[in-house]
């Protein structure tokens, strides 16, 4: 169980400060939890605070009753942590098994026999059992991510934090990766941070949306989808100008009879031909961001 109360994080001093987190409150239980938000919302900062890498400016963070704001607490949390950062740096000259083995040593797995067994297991779990002897520098982006998740799992963590894990992966790799995370969430807390709405929808029963360092939504993907009900329209138009009037175009498709737009907004009264449609998770997210006053680039 993770309990976060009034968490703030300010970077910089004097006139050049950036408020990354601004009084964030959140409770996260076991299973897969999604953290959604635009770039710069504070997701990575939150992840790093939970991982004990970044210090909070104020507020409290408790992981299984351990205070992450203290040095001793950080060390305790790190012992039960698996962490896959957004920018995954590895030693390119090591082979996959060596890299995971080295991380296992850093995490305190002392017994060589048990460690070797554990390394084999996690590499097998991520589908790299045939590539354990290959140097990391020869791996594709997806394979490197899998090595990253293997090192995160090698200490059998109670808390797994993965930050933007599917960025840069091809569709097949993304699906494989999502399925892997869901499997792992069966007996631990998996915190998945992403700005890819689909990843959350496919994997999480529970999610939070963060914008400007605060939680602006907490609930299930179905609830987030439902939030946009009555605010999503489809319009086919042959006019050259794109629909506007406060509507956000979430998708557009060029057809023979004109361009088909999918739009999210308060009202489409200015477009009599616009037809209300069932919202999807992405529509819910866009509507939420519009409601929160977060700018969304229109297509």
């Amino acid at each position, binding site marked *: 169980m993770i309990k976060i109360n009034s968490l703030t994080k300010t970077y910089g001093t004097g006139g050049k400060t950036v408020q990354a987190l601004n009084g964030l409150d959140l409770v996260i239980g076991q299973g897969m939890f999604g953290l959604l938000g635009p770039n710069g919302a504070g997701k990575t900062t939150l992840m*790093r605070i939970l*991982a*004990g*890498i*970044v*210090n909070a400016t104020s507020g409290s963070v408790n992981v299984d009753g351990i205070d992450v704001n203290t*040095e001793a607490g950080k*060390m305790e949390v*790190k*012992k039960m*942590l698996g*962490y896959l*950062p957004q*920018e*995954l*740096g*590895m*030693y*390119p*000259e*090591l082979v996959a098994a*060596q890299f995971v*083995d*080295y*991380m296992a*040593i*850093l*995490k*305190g797995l*002392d017994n060589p026999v048990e460690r070797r067994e554990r390394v084999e297991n996690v590499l097998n779990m991520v589908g790299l059992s045939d590539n354990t002897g290959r140097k990391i520098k020869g791996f594709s982006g997806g394979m490197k991510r899998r090595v990253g998740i293997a*090192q995160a799992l090698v200490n059998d963590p109670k808390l797994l934090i993965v930050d933007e894990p599917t960025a840069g992966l091809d569709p097949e790799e993304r699906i494989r990766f999502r399925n892997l995370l869901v499997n792992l969430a069966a007996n631990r807390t998996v915190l998945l941070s992403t700005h890819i709405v689909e990843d959350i929808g496919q994997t999480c029963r529970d999610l939070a949306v963060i914008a400007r360092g605060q939680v602006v939504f907490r609930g299930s993907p179905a609830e987030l989808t439902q939030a946009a009900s009555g605010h999503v329209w489809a319009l086919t138009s042959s006019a050259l100008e794109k629909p506007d009037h406060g509507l956000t175009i979430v998708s557009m498709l060029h057809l023979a009879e004109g361009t088909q737009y999918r739009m999210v907004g308060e009202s489409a009264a200015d477009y009599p031909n616009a037809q209300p449609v069932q919202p999807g998770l992405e529509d819910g997210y866009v509507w939420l961001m519009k409601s929160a006053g977060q700018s969304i680039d229109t297509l």
Partner: protein
Amino acid sequence: MKRFSLRYALMTYKLDQFYLPLAVFGLFIVVSLIMKDTPQFTNIARIYLGTVLPLLGGILAAYAILEDPALELRFATPISASRTLFERLGIIFISQAIFALFFQVIYTLLGGNFSQFVNVWYVQLAWIIPTISLMMLGCVCSLLAANSTIGALMVGMVWLVELIARGWFAENFGKYFLVFMGPLMPEHPDLIANQISLFVISAVLLLCSTALLRRQERYI
């Protein structure tokens, strides 16, 4: 808990950080061979051991921590800052020590001697103290600036200023900070005070480096 592996410490040590000292070592061996029968031969060992080796150690130490490609992953493990420093700086010191000892052996085989020094222990102190001093300077400056290059530049600057103005340093309060007193002025009356002072300063810089490295968010 173990949390240290010499094997992986060596495997994750960038080889180019080994090639530079190796190349300089080779160069000084060649120079020793060429100047074997000249009066300058006696100075070659002092220059290599007391000035060049510490400079290389300082520069390598400046790049030792922050250039780790898996730094964020390492920060997420329960490894203490002091352990990270020990692992990364230890490898550099050991490699410098190997070069220093090999050079002494080869230099002696070529007919060189260390008669300027009181005994063999003073010869070792003549490279150990400057090497540790400049290594800690490079490390703390790179962590303070959160930039390895700035750490290396600081080492270069201190090295150059002290080398050029060593006479001034030796006659003033600066004698306690002159890293080259051991190798270049072994007969200086305040040599022991100088070495104790540099050792204490290095220890303080190590503590500062540990405190700085605990503030992990500065480096990611």
